[in-house]
């Protein structure tokens, strides 16, 4: 499950990137490249863990993730600001 602050809690299908799941629920989230190199989708991860299948190149802080190329590996809480 993915809990999005100020929005709702949604189910995450494992084949999706986190970005795709958020978009499927019509929640506005930024993106440009969708490949992990621009940082437009930068989001705070407040709880839980994600993994990357390709190396994210964009700068992110220790508590941030790139939804366009990450996959949750536990229930997570995020804040898309």
């Amino acid at each position, binding site marked *: 499950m993915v809990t999005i602050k100020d929005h709702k809690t949604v189910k995450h299908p494992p084949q999706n990137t986190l970005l795709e799941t958020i978009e499927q629920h019509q929640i*506005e989230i*930024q*993106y*440009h*490249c*969708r*490949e992990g*190199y*621009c*940082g*437009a989708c*930068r989001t705070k991860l407040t709880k839980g863990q994600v993994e990357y299948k390709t*190396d994210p*190149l*964009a*700068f992110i802080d220790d508590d941030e993730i790139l939804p366009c190329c990450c996959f949750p590996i536990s229930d997570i809480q995020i804040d898309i600001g």
Partner: protein
Amino acid sequence: MKYTTFNQVNNNPLIEPMFFGNPVNVARYDQQKHPIFEKLIEKQISFFWRPEEVDVSKDRVDFQKLSDSEKHIFISNLKYQTLLDSIQGRSPNIAFLPIISIPELETWVETWSFFETIHSRSYTHILRNLFGDPSSIFDDIVENKEIKKRAEDISKYYDDLIFATQLWQTLGEGTHTIKGETHIITMRELKKKLYLCMNSVNALEAIRFYVSFACTFAFAERELMEGNSKIIRLIARDENLHLTSTQHVLNLWAKGKDDPEMAEIAEECKEQATQIFLHAVEQEKEWAAFLFQHGSMIGLNKEILCQYVEFIANHRMSAIGLGQPFDIKNNPLPWMNNYLSSDNVQVAPQESEISSYLVGQIDSEVSAEDFGDFDL
């Protein structure tokens, strides 16, 4: 310190700072102090493209259909972008290479700048298609006062760093009087100039292209100037990567992951860095006003463009710890994202101009009489 093209000191590049340590000697990439730059090099090279691969011939017909105010918007944006890439095609090399101390960053800067030269070449490709002889457009770049104003603001931080570096290389630290002017050269001052320059470059890569990108893609939304739009998408993809690199440099400094003195300077000069960014935002808004002075275009006006600049600026500024100074929360031009994503941005082979076709295109002005003596 005198620059040397091959530093004979057997230093360990893994403990050098990014800038102002020993000059780089061996160009080796098997080990990196900051692996991110090696990854950026690989990514950038994988993006390689040639302007000639994009067929822009249909744009010539479209261009004739534009209103005069739309022509003004289209051409002015190309001039501004030509200016930006003229600066970026040389300046990172000249300003940063002489003071870089790790091979992966040195090569990243060279790769980055090389791609800016591809961007410059693509403007010639676009303009030559529209005008045959684009001289008057290029000539105006050094005459147009709106463009010159921006040129000065961008190049001054580079020029300042380059001049101080030259004094340091030839005369060393100290107080130097050159042609009656006094210059105080200390390592601290050099590093401050570097910090401000990097912030100015970061702001350039972060927002200075986005007003013109928005106009280009607004034309494309109306199925106009699509060859141009395809080229701009390829450019935008590269610019995103350049921005990522300057954000990494600034954050490595600020978070104390490189040169501890740069962390102090980042703290000390935070206000100046913020002002550099905000000034670039202001200039972009003024640019929007200049573009729309004769009338706006379908789908875009000055207000919405200014909001978009603020929206982008919030994102970019927060990425380097400068907060989100503008109130805007939602993207006023959501369709922009489709053009800025990497999906389908690769040039499709069937759309490319093969070189024989290019030759045909150049010759298309030749009239039938020219073949009078040919016997087929």
